[in-house]
C-alpha cells in the first residue's frame, strides 16, 4: 500500500509538470491546450488524494499522514531531478523550439498560454520583480 502511495505521488507530480508548457514540450513535444492542462492538473490532484488514502491505509492514522508528506516531498524531488537531468527524447522540430523557450529567448507564447509560459514570465515580464532576484 505504501509503495502504491509513493507511485501515485510520483505520478501526481509528473502530471503537474506535464501541465506546464516547457516540460510538456520537452517530453511530449506538444504544447498542451488549456483543456488538456486543466485535465492533467485535475488528474494530479486526484493522484495526490490517492497517495494519501493508500499511505494512510498502509500505515494508519498516526504515521500515515507524516509519511504522506514525506512521499510528496520525495516524489517532487524525483520528478524534479528526472525532468532536469534526464536527457529529453531527441528533438523534433517542436522539440528544438523548446530549447529556445527554456533559454528565455524563444518566440513569445500565444496569448492562450500566457499564464504558464516560461518565456513571458522570464523573458518579457513587464514588472521588474525585485524580490525575484534576491538571494
Amino acid at each position, binding site marked *: 500500500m505504501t509503495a502504491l502511495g509513493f507511485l501515485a505521488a510520483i505520478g501526481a507530480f509528473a502530471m503537474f509538470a506535464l501541465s506546464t508548457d516547457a516540460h510538456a514540450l520537452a517530453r511530449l513535444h506538444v504544447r498542451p491546450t488549456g483543456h488538456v492542462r486543466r485535465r492533467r492538473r485535475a488528474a494530479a490532484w486526484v493522484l495526490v488524494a490517492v497517495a494519501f488514502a493508500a499511505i494512510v491505509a498502509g500505515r494508519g492514522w498516526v*504515521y500515515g499522514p*507524516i509519511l504522506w508528506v514525506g512521499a510528496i516531498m520525495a516524489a*517532487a524531488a524525483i520528478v*524534479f531531478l528526472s525532468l532536469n537531468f534526464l536527457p529529453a527524447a531527441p528533438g523534433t522540430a517542436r522539440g528544438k523550439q523548446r530549447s529556445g523557450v527554456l533559454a528565455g529567448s524563444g518566440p513569445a507564447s500565444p496569448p492562450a498560454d500566457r499564464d504558464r509560459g516560461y518565456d513571458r514570465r522570464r523573458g518579457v515580464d513587464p514588472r521588474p520583480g525585485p*524580490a525575484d*532576484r*534576491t538571494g
Partner: protein
Amino acid sequence: MSKGFRQSQAQLHTWSGLLLGWVLFVVFATGTIAFWREPLNRWMRPELARVEDPAGVLHGAQAFLEGSAGDATTWFITLPGVQAPGAQVFWIPRPTTGGAPARGPRDTQAMIGADGTAVAARDTRGGEFFYRFHFDLYYMPVIYARWLVGIAAMFMLVAILSGIVTHKKIFRDFFTLRRAKGQRSWLDGHNATAVLGLPFHLMMTYTGLVTLMAMLMPWATVANYDDEAKLFDALFPHVEAVPRSGTPAPLVDLRPLVRDAEVRLGGPAGFVEVSEPGDAAARVTVSRAPGSMLDSRAPKVTYDGVTGRPIWTSPVPRAAARTAGVMVGLHAGRYGDLLIRWLYFLGGVAGTVMVASGLVLWTVKRREKLPDPARPHVGFRLVERLNVAVVGGFPFAVACFFWANRLLPPAMESRAAWEVHCLFMAWVAATLLATTARPARAWAALLGATGALLALIPLHNIAFTARGIFASIAAGDWMPVGADLTFLVFGAAFLAVARRVARFRPAGRRPRRTVAPTNALLAEPAE
C-alpha cells in the same frame, strides 16, 4: 504596496539568512548526520558483532552491573535495538563520605556486546557526537550554545517565512532548473531545495524551537509554576523515590520484567533504570522504546525490584505535554523505520544544501554589482572567505573525524576526545586555507579532499576491518553496507562538485567564481 512589502521581506530574508547562516549550516549538517546516530554508534566500532539476542545482552548487562557496580545508587541500561552496537550501561556510584575522590565519568559506563560481556571496543563518541553537537556545539558552555542555536533557529524561521514571500514565484516555477546560468542557476537550486523540502524545513525549525522552548521562552512556566521541580514533575512524571532500607535482597531477573513491561506499555521496551539495586527497596523502571512511538516522552512502568510486582504506571500525558512530546518526537525522527529515516535524511540534505546555496548566492549576486570586482570591499571578502571556511571546511572536518575514528590507535589515552579534536584541527586548517588561498582554489581543494576522504573510507573498511562491504553482504548485515555505500555516494558527489569548480572559467568580462555546480549540488553534496 505589494512591491514595498515584498522588498522589505527580501531584505529580511537576505539578512536573517546571512547573519547566522554559518551556524545554521553546521547545525543542519550535524543534525542531518545525527539521524544515523545509532547506526553510526555501531559503524564507528567496527570490531563489535551484531546484536542477535537482545534478552541475552540484557542478562549480561545485569550480571556485569552486579559484579562491577553492585553498590551503585542507580543503574541505567539502554536496551539494544537492531542497529545498536550493544547495550550501553552506566551507573551512579554511591557517594563516599570523605576519603577517596569520586571516580571519573569514564569509569561508570560500559558497553555490553552481543555476547553479553563488557566489550573492549575503541573509545569513540560515535553518532552521539553529531547528536550533541547539533544543539550543544562544542568547546563552549552548553547553555550559551543552546541560546546560540535557539536564536539561529528563530532566524531560520524568519528566513523561511520571509523567503516564501520573497520568492513567491517558486511555486509556479516549481520544476524549473536553468543550468549553467550563473546567478539564475544558484537561485533555482536554492529555491528547489527549499520548496521541495519546505514542509520538512518548516516542521524541523518549528519543532526544533519547541525542544528549546522552556529555555527560550520561560514566561509561561514562570507564571504557572513557582517551583521548577513541580514543572518537571508535571512534564516528566516518575515514581516516588524510596530511601535505601539497608537490608540486602537479591535483584529479580530483569528479563521477565522487561517482557511484562512490553505487554503493559504496548510496545518494545527501550530503557531500564534500577534504583538501589541489591537492596530490599530496589525499584525497576522500564520505559518504552522511543523508536516505537511518535511521542518522545515514553510511558513507564515501575516494579518492585525484589518481588517483581508492578507498583506504578506513568499517567497518561495531558494534551499540552503530549503535543510537546509529539513535536519533539517529530523533530528527532526516532519513531521512524528505515524508510522514514531516509526521508528525514534526504530532507536534511536538502536543507543543508539550501543553507549553503543561500550563503553562496549572497556573494554570487553581489559580485556582479561590485564597483571593482578585482578588489571587493571588506564585507564581501569576509562572507566569501567564511563561506569557504564553513561550507567547504566543515564537511572536510567531518570527513577527517571519520578517518580519525579509523586511524587513531585504539589504546590511546582519551581517544574519543581526540577524535573530536581532529575534527576541529581539520576545520582550523581549512579556515587557514580559506583565508590564504584564492577562494576558487580553496573551494576546489576542500571539496576535492572531502570527496576523496569520504570515498576512500569504504576501501579502508574492506582492507582493515571485519565489516568491509563484501564481508557484510556475505553476513547479510545490511547496516554497514548501507553506510559504506552512502559514503561512496557522498564522496562521488563531492568530487563531482569539486571538478566542476576546478574547471570553471568565469564567462564574460566580469570575473566570477564557481557559478556552475548546481546540478551536482542537487545530486547531493554536503554532509
